[in-house]
């Protein structure tokens, strides 16, 4: 079973050289720490930055330079800054190769719910609806079950949707799964020490297991 950093580390293996990547808040942000050496990957922050660098050194924070999570950050040589309309322009026109974000629920046909819980204060969707509606490749990083122990991989989402039929892959503390175009979660990899039986027991949506399922290789 993986911790948050493990999930991030596994997702980082999905990166390819030359990718432009948008990282959501939470576990996705951690992916930046595990970009494989030798890969050139450019991070896009939807508040208007391409080429997001690491957090600034203590004392060097710049209030004018933040990421979409409102954290102080830095630029890199070759960074570019632009306004919010162009930022979502490049997202909508699929110039961003990969989007990684968190979710409350994912359904077996690729729907995602991650912005609203009825009865609770709704903070808003931010850029999530734009990202999921536009991205050509979306990976969800999340826990396999919620705090109540219920599966977050469902036949259908129960929460209000953020986007429909858009999620291509899910990485949890237990497994890596593809979401198939025809519906269903195809199990690709198990986290170290986790059995397919256990994954089956916490996956409410249609789970497809074909042949031997390998353990994740994290290093």
């Amino acid at each position, binding site marked *: 079973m993986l911790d948050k950093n493990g999930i991030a580390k596994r997702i980082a293996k999905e990166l390819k050289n030359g990718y432009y990547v948008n990282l959501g808040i939470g576990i996705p942000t951690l992916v930046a720490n595990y970009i494989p050496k030798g890969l050139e990957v450019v991070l896009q922050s939807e508040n208007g930055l391409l080429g997001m660098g690491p957090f600034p050194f203590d004392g060097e924070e710049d209030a004018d330079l*933040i990421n979409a999570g409102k954290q102080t950050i830095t630029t890199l040589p070759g960074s570019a800054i632009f306004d919010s309309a162009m930022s979502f322009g490049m997202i909508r026109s699929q110039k961003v190769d990969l989007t990684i974000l968190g979710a409350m629920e994912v359904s077996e046909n690729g729907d995602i719910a991650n912005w609203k819980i009825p009865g609770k204060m709704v903070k808003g969707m931010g850029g999530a*609806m734009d990202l999921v509606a536009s991205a050509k490749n979306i990976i969800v990083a999340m826990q396999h079950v919620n705090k109540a122990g219920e599966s977050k991989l469902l036949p259908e989402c129960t929460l209000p949707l953020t986007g429909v039929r858009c999620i291509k892959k899910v990485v949890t503390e237990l497994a890596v799964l593809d979401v198939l175009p025809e519906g269903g979660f195809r199990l690709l990899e198990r986290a170290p020490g986790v059995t397919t039986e256990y994954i089956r027991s916490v996956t409410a949506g249609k789970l497809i297991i074909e042949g031997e399922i390998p353990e994740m290789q994290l290093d």
Partner: protein
Amino acid sequence: MINKTVQNAEEAIKDIEDGMTLMLGGFGLCGIPENTINALVKKGVKELTCISNNAGVDDFGIGLMLQQRQVKKMIASYVGENAEFERQLLSGELEVELIPQGTLATRCMASGYGMPAIFTPAGVGTEVAEGKETRNFNGKEYLMEMAFESDFAIVKAWKGDTAGNLVYRATARNFNPVMAMAGKITIAEVEELVEPGELDPDQIHTPGIYIHRIFQGKNYEKRIEQRTVRQK
């Protein structure tokens, strides 16, 4: 060049009245028009509809206007980090309309570009699509979203000249250029107001034609919402 200078925030907002719709630039607390917000709080104008990506925090930014109950309706993409906001929302004092961030930005830009509506896939199949026209282009569904206009757009830039040309700094740019284009009247506050000719014409982010009033702000606090650092 046409001189757009006003003395200060008070003069810039002199004809903002109860019930008007205001756009306010900024993302979180980054790049917000601090001086003008403070002047609006002091003036006490009420029943406002505010269009801004966020609603500030309890004691800064639009949060200050919420504390004074000046906002009737908030149109935003994300409104966390604000306890008073939550209280007013739950008590029914405040109306909120949540809009996907890219849709918000593009609806503002549409106004500045004279396009009455735009198409975006954001929100298709969700409650955001309710009551909206959808349309299929090349096999993909899009929502038709209408251009946004406001009585006043209020933006903050780094530098500006008296002709209204603006230059933003780093990610404090965010929504400011698109909102600057969408105000019937647009007010710009800048950290440094310079004479025409001091800004390179090639490097202007917002041409002065979009700006009606400009002034040099003072005492910028530039509060940081999430100070995140690494150690040397």
